[in-house]
C-alpha cells in the first residue's frame, strides 16, 4: 500500500526531471543575446504602464468561494458513493438531506448574484 505512494513520488520526481532536462538541453543549444528592448513586457508594442500585480475583478473571487463549498462536499460524497449499494434506503435519505443543504446554499449564492458577471 505504502509502496504505491512511493511510486507516485517517483512519478512526481520523473516529471520534474523531464521538464528540467528539456530546459537544460535547450539551454545548451539556444543563443543568448538579451538586451533591454527584448526583455520588455510584451504588450503589443505599447509602453507598459505600471505593474499588473494590482487589485483585480472580484467576481473571480466569488467563483472561487462557491467552488470551495462544492470541493469540500466531495470529501464527504465519495465515501458515501462507494458504499451506496450497501447502505440501501439510508443512503437515499442521506442524499436528500445532504443535497438539500447543498442546493440551498447554491441557490442562495445564485440569488445573491454570485454567478452574475458585472
Amino acid at each position, binding site marked *: 500500500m505504502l509502496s504505491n505512494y512511493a511510486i507516485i513520488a517517483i512519478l512526481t520526481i520523473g516529471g520534474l526531471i523531464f521538464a528540467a532536462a528539456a530546459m537544460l538541453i535547450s539551454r545548451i543549444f539556444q543563443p543568448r543575446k538579451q538586451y533591454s528592448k527584448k526583455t520588455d513586457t510584451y504588450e503589443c508594442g505599447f509602453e507598459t504602464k505600471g505593474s499588473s500585480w494590482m487589485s483585480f475583478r472580484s467576481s473571480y473571487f466569488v467563483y472561487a468561494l462557491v467552488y470551495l463549498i462544492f470541493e469540500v462536499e466531495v470529501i464527504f460524497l465519495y465515501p458515501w458513493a462507494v458504499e451506496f*449499494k450497501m447502505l440501501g434506503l439510508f443512503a437515499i435519505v442521506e442524499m436528500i438531506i445532504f443535497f438539500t443543504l*447543498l442546493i440551498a446554499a447554491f441557490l442562495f449564492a445564485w440569488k445573491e448574484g454570485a454567478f452574475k458577471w458585472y
Partner: protein
Amino acid sequence: MEFLDNIFLYGTSIIRSIITWIGFDPAITNMIMAAVYTVAILVICTLVALFYVLYERKLAGFIQYRPGPNKLGPFGLFQTVADAVKLLTKEDIVPRNADKALHFLAPLFVFIPPILALGAIPFGNKLVAVDLNIGMLYILAVTSLSTIPFFLAGWSSNNKYTMLGAMRAVSQKISYEIPVIFSVLAITMIAGSLNMSEVVGMQGKLWFVFVQPLSFLIFFIAGIAETNRAPFDLPEGESELTAGYLTEYSGMKWALFFLAEYCSMFVFSAMATTLFLGGWLGPVLPGWMWFVLKVHVLMTVIIWIRWTFPRIRVDKLLEFNWKILIPASILNIFATGIGVYLFNNFF
C-alpha cells in the same frame, strides 16, 4: 493473441527478473520498476504530444479544405520533429519585470499533473503503473493541481495579458471541475468502487456510457473546458489576449506548456474511456490497442470540435457551467441514486 495482449507485461516482467538477477533486494527492485514505469509514461506523453500536434494540424487542414503541413517528409510526417528542433534552439526570454523564480518554476511543474494522472490509468488488463484503490479520486485530485502552474505562469510574468489569462484559466478550471467530479460520482455510485481497473471490469456487459449518457455528456463538455480547448480556450484566446498566460514564454518553456496541454487532453480522453467506454475491453484486438483506439476516437472528436465551433464569451462560459452543467449533474446524481436503489431492491 494472448501474447500480444500481454506484450508490455512480459516486457516489465523481463526487466524485473533482470534486476532481481543482478541482486537488488525487493524494495529497491520495486523502486527501479517505478522508475521504468515513469520513463514509459514520459515516453507515452511525448509520443502523444508529437503525434497529436501533427494529427490536429492535418485534421484542421482537412476540415478547412487545405493540405496542412505537407513539405517535410511523406505527408509532412516530420513536421513536429522539425518544430521540436526549432523550439529547442530558440532563445529563452525572461521579461525584466517578471518574478524570475516563479517564472522558472511554472514550466517545471506543468508536466507533473498529467504524468501523475497517467500513472493510475489502466492502459490494458493489469497494465497500470499504480493500481490505487482510490484511483478515481486520486486522478481528480492531481488533475485539479494543474491550475497551479498556469496561475504561476500568468502571475509571475507581470503582464496584463498573462494576468487576465491566468485569472480566466483558474476560474474556468475550478468551475468546470465540479461537473466533472459530480459525473464521476454517479459512476462511483453504480460501480461501488474507486479503483479504475475494477470500474473497467464492470463494463464487460454494458459500457457505462449507456447507463449514464447524461453523465458522459457533462463529463465530456467539462473535460474540454478543463483542458482549455476550444470553444472554451478563453485563457489563451489569441484575438483578445495574444496568448493568455503563455504570452511571456518562449522556446522550450513554451514547448513544455504546449506538451502538457496535449498530455492533459490525452489524460482526459483516457479517463473518459476508462470510466464510460469500457477501457481496454473489446473483442479480437489486444486490450491496449482497444484502449488506444477509443482514446483516439475521443481525441478526434475534441479536435473536430475545436475546428468547428467559435470561441464563446467568458461570462457565457461560466454561466453555462454554473447554471446548466452543475444543476444538471446534481439532478443526474439524484436520478442515479434512486435508479440504483430501485434496481438493487426490486429487480
